């Protein structure tokens, strides 16, 4: 684990920034996450080691969006490659955040970070250079769709950070693409801050190539009357981990999370979510799906925290999983931590194989077993894909990814 050795020997970065210094200090004593903790115990050790085995010092190669732009009206940004953005229109504005805003924000977060809970973020901030941190302040209720690409270079470890501040009454569709190139590791940390009465439809599509790894951390803060919808797809990584932490700061907000992870061969993809309600009348609707083939392993652990202050919370969390091979494995653990006494919270998990009666029904109409299975799988994915804020017919890449599964 090349990177960990460098942290231990204090040779990770030659000229660390203030943030990097802070994070290195936090990691120096315990550079690795606690593998006995709930958050890490199912992580495949050898795959996790391979995640940390690439060099972060190699020159990054240029990347481009993996699909065509079908509309002039989309704002596209690549983390690490866009030097400056400042758009001011009548109905919206997007401006690059000031360095001081970014530093203050990250510093504030780091001070509250627990090494186990936020190990992924601490590592990201150790390695993410100023060039690879993109911060935007977005306002207006007619913001064009925004697409942001983050990618790793082959044979490298790359860390990218995205911070988006959504001002009051802002409404936006945001698509984030995390692309893992061959033999590489990508650490992506994202912060979204939703002010009052904002509405953000957020799509996260992460897909890798041969032996690519991903550590994807998403931290969302929601103020009152905000609505946050997340639709995510993770697939084709040797090892991937998607950590989602959402905090409804004062309650009276709505969160919808729909995600799917598809594992094949011997891949491991895990999703960890932590939903914190810190005020009354909060709403959560969450559906996480896993689809595991071959000898792969999918993991989902979701926690909903409802303290006493969060009365009248209405939360549901469902984990639905499909095992397509007897050698594949799925671990799922939805859990509730409730102290408030006037709440509606439900959770559940199912693990099943393709429904035989559905398959027979389709075969009895002349569809082959393969056609029926594909149609059923496509419907299984569709429920999540439809929540990603780009229609799949307009998006060649997603269409291709779906056809391959």
């Amino acid at each position, binding site marked *: 684990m090349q990177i960990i050795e460098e942290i231990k020997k204090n040779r990770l970065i030659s000229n660390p920034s203030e943030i990097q210094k802070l994070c290195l200090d936090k990691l120096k004593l315990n550079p690795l996450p606690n593998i006995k903790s709930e958050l890490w115990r199912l992580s495949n050790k050898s795959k996790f080691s391979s995640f940390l085995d690439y060099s972060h010092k190699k020159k990054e190669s240029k990347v481009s969006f993996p699909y065509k732009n079908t509309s002039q009206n989309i704002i596209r940004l690549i983390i690490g490659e866009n030097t400056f953005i400042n758009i001011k229109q009548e109905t919206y504005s997007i401006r690059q955040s000031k360095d001081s805003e970014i530093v203050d924000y990250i510093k504030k977060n780091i001070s509250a970070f627990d090494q186990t809970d936020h190990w992924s973020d601490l590592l990201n901030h150790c390695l993410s250079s100023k060039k690879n941190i993109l911060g935007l302040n977005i306002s207006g209720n007619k913001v064009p769709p925004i697409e942001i690409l983050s990618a790793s270079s082959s044979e490298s470890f790359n860390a990218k950070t995205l911070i988006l501040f959504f001002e009051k009454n802002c409404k936006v569709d945001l698509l984030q693409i995390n692309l893992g190139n061959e033999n590489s590791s990508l650490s992506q940390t994202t912060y979204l801050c939703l002010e009052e009465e904002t509405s953000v439809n957020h799509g996260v599509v992460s897909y890798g190539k041969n032996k690519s790894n991903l550590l994807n951390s998403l931290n969302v803060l929601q103020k009152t009357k905000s609505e946050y919808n997340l639709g995510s797809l993770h697939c084709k990584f040797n090892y991937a981990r998607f950590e989602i932490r959402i905090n409804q700061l004062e309650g009276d907000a709505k969160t919808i999370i729909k995600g799917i992870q598809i594992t094949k061969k011997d891949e491991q993809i895990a999703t960890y979510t932590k939903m914190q309600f810190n005020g009354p009348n909060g709403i959560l609707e969450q559906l996480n799906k896993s689809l595991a083939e071959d000898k792969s392993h999918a993991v989902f652990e979701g926690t909903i925290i409802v303290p006493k202050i969060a009365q009248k919370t209405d939360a549901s969390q469902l984990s639905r999983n499909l095992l397509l091979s007897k050698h594949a494995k799925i671990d799922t653990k939805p859990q509730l931590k409730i102290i408030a006494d006037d709440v509606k919270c439900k959770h559940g998990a199912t693990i099943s194989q393709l429904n035989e009666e559905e398959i*027979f*029904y*389709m075969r*009895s*109409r*002349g569809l082959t077993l393969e056609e029926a299975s594909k*149609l059923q799988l496509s419907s299984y994915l*569709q*429920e999540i894909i439809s929540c990603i804020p780009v229609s799949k017919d307009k998006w060649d890449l997603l269409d291709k990814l779906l056809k391959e599964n």
Partner: protein
Amino acid sequence: MQSKTKDLVPILEVNNLFASTENLPILKGVTISVNPGEIHAIMGRNGCGKSTLSKIIAGHPSYTITKGEIKFTGRDIRSLEPEVRAQSGIFLGFQYPIEIPGVSNLEFLRVATNARRKFLKKEELDTFDFEDLVKEKLDLVKMDSAFLSRSINQGFSGGEKKRNEILQMALLEPKIAILDETDSGLDIDALRIVASGIKKISNEETGIILITHYQRLLDEIKPDYVHVMSEGQIIKTGESDLALELEKHGYEWTDNCSKQL
């Protein structure tokens, strides 16, 4: 009982069929023959094996044929996959049509219709041509085109599900249709719509097997033959007036036939 059309090659012949599921025998020697243009009704108590017979003819993988044969247009179909049976013209109308969330009804109907058309060496239909065809067939069962954009049977009422089955039958133009309790759960108007649809689809070349408990469907579609099943066997066969007798006396009336077998 002699067939009315004895000179024709039967569309379907089931000869002395024994079948089981999970080592539990269900069919114990069923024999039935359906010629082109004939309508047969199968009646019998719950659990007597009517639905099992229909599923076995359609090729349901949960059942094992232990003895006997099933011939479709003279060919033994026991080893054929369900989709090959469907493509060649066997249609099963389900007692409980399956809901498949997320799969568009329209897309499903198009793929199914094209599978049958391919078998018939007809040109496959693209989305636009198929929409024209399906709209024409929707009229047969008085269904709204809004049903096409929904997931298969999801959120459909009992009557809508049954009408969707008949719509599928109309699109697939089968040689033989086995309709398993198509009348159950239908109100009088819906029953008439479904019965009228079935009558319009059937012709001199198709055979129909109606599995039912009630005379009311047979008032709408008069069968040529009525068979009574009990404990995995056909214990009595007659013409359409047999159904009236059953309606009058109940299944106890046929119990002696069962004992004599």
